């Protein structure tokens, strides 16, 4: 496995009337080729914003990537201008994205073939005819029945599940090294979601494509991801392989998150309170007001960075990473 993407110190802020919202706060993570990395967290924790920052998709103003690097190959993605030639060369070709809402992310005025071959004609030097063949082949791979005729359909002629299959096909068609799937299956029904996830999993494993799976559904990451980053209030608070995290959740938030999802035959423990406001955040741990293990030192010490505990498992919690002075 080789390193594909190295993100360091990424910080994204939005200017609002009430103050500066720091949506992503100094996060660092890596993605290796061929692996599936899950990014989990609740809404507003910065999981989508962090991915959009890397792709140069943050609307500016009001948003701005204020610090950090994201090394992909030899390029720092955050240094590239949004519409620059280099960025366009990477976006859609080397890194592609699948968004949540399949109706709004497809162009309603173009046929499926037109918008999918647009990618190929933009990035690869092939003829329209060859592009159409590749599109039909891709549609077959993502499980669209009768792809020869469906390729000339418009998005509104397809169901939600079909449209999302087209989105997956579109993301895969240039054979990218990395796919970012931002809540790609959230809007779909349970059985359709399962079909799509299985298909995506098989496809990326087959093509040896890396995937960053942004989701709030712990079940999905437990089933498909190799590693996870858990995000809370703009920070990655815990990171590790799926099994490391479930066997021994280090950060109290991760622990509570796992316990507050109903499982067969288990009691649900709710997390009291609400996520904090991202404006004027205190220097202490963001989870502090809701944490059931908090101690005196938590109120005094500034928040830690993500610290490696063992193996590949790291956490931001001072009590659990051995960083605290008076651990019980």
């Amino acid at each position, binding site marked *: 496995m080789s390193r594909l993407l190295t993100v360091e110190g990424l910080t994204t802020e939005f200017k609002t009337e009430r103050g500066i919202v720091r949506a992503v706060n100094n996060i660092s993570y890596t993605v290796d080729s061929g692996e599936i990395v899950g990014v989990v967290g609740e809404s507003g924790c910065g999981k989508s914003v962090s991915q959009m920052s890397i792709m140069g998709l943050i609307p500016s103003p009001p948003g701005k990537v204020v610090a950090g690097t994201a090394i992909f190959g030899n390029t720092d993605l955050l240094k590239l201008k949004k519409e620059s030639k280099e960025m366009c060369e990477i976006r859609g070709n080397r890194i592609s994205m699948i968004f949540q809402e399949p109706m709004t992310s497809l162009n309603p005025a173009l046929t499926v073939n037109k918008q999918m071959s647009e990618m190929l004609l933009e990035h690869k030097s092939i003829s329209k005819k060859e592009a159409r063949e590749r599109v039909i082949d891709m549609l077959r791979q993502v499980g669209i029945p009768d792809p020869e005729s469906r390729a000339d359909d418009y998005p509104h002629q397809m169901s939600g599940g079909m449209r999302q299959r087209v989105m997956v096909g579109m993301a895969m068609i240039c054979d990218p090294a990395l796919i970012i799937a931002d809540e790609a299956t959230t809007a779909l029904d349970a059985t*359709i979601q399962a079909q799509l996830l299985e298909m995506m999993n098989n496809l990326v494993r087959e093509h040896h494509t890396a995937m960053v799976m942004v989701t709030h559904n712990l079940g999905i990451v437990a089933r498909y991801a190799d590693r996870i980053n858990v995000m809370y209030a703009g920070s990655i608070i815990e990171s590790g392989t799926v099994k490391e995290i479930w066997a021994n959740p280090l950060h109290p938030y991760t622990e509570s998150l796992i316990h507050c*999802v109903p499982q067969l035959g288990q009691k649900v423990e709710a997390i009291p309170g609400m996520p904090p406001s991202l404006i004027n955040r205190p220097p202490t741990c963001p989870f502090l007001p809701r944490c059931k293990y908090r101690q005196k030192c938590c109120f005094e010490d500034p928040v830690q960075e993500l610290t490696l505990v063992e193996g590949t498992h790291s956490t931001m919690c001072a009590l659990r990473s051995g960083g605290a002075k008076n651990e019980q």
Partner: protein
Amino acid sequence: MSNNIIEVRDLKMYFPVLRGLLKRKVADVKALDGISFDIKEGETLGLVGESGCGKTTVGRNLIRLYKPTDGSIVFKGKEIAKAKEKDLGWVRREMAMVFQDPYSSLNPRLNSAEIVGEPLKIHNLVSSKKEFNERVEELFVMSGLSPDMMDRYPHEYSGGQRQRLSIARALAGDPSLIICDEPISALDVSMQAQILNLLQKLQEKREGLSYLFISHDLLAVQYISKRVAVMYLGHIVEMADSEELYSHTLHPYSQALLSAQPLPDPFIEENREVVVMQGELPTPLNPPSGCTFHTRCPMAQKICSEKAPELKDVGCGHCVACHLV
């Protein structure tokens, strides 16, 4: 049985499809095609299924937001399926509803005390302003909201708190049945758990409070319900006690639905076989013949496309509608 709070028999709800200048009826969407179930006093019945299977239509029929095409609904011993709108006042007090979207189900121009207290005024349950305030405060506390927030407007609340407001409003008439239509699907995981626990706590506190809990989230339904009914295309295909249904799933559709739900535990997922069901939900405008599930069923036989299976008890109250069970 007398301790059934509501008995539904052969409930049908057809929505006409109108076309052309004269709005002639060209077809029916059979949203519900013969549904029967009971809810006992103090019991929670979970209703699961994918979108378009008719689960919301069931809830709206019970509280008579829709007028059923056919069938009977006996609520507290009285037939309400065909009752006139003016005779339904008591039903709307005794039965309340919590909707899915906490943003559009609260009037943005009323403050939260007015929203929660509106049923008290409509049903003349309080006689003075003082009593009104006391009662609203009590409802706030019951739903886990601080009474200091009584004069705030809905936009000042977060999603989870808005859903608490909806629950407080539902409790105002002191109902015996609350229909919860996807009450947690618009919320974040940590908020979902809070709402689930709140609903359970309320049921413990107020004896005899029943819920119809409608959701597409199998794990949440399993957690909160005593009995669970699985719906597919306007029919109940399986109904059983929650534990029984999840441990001995009989209907192929319920099995597929359960398998499609990823469990939040990698150690279980590792050894779990994923059965992916083919195809998509057929349109209720022209449902398949016989068993409506036969087009997607991995075990379908000849009889399945010819004859519709009936919901039959296979023991211990476990009912299933399948020829092959």
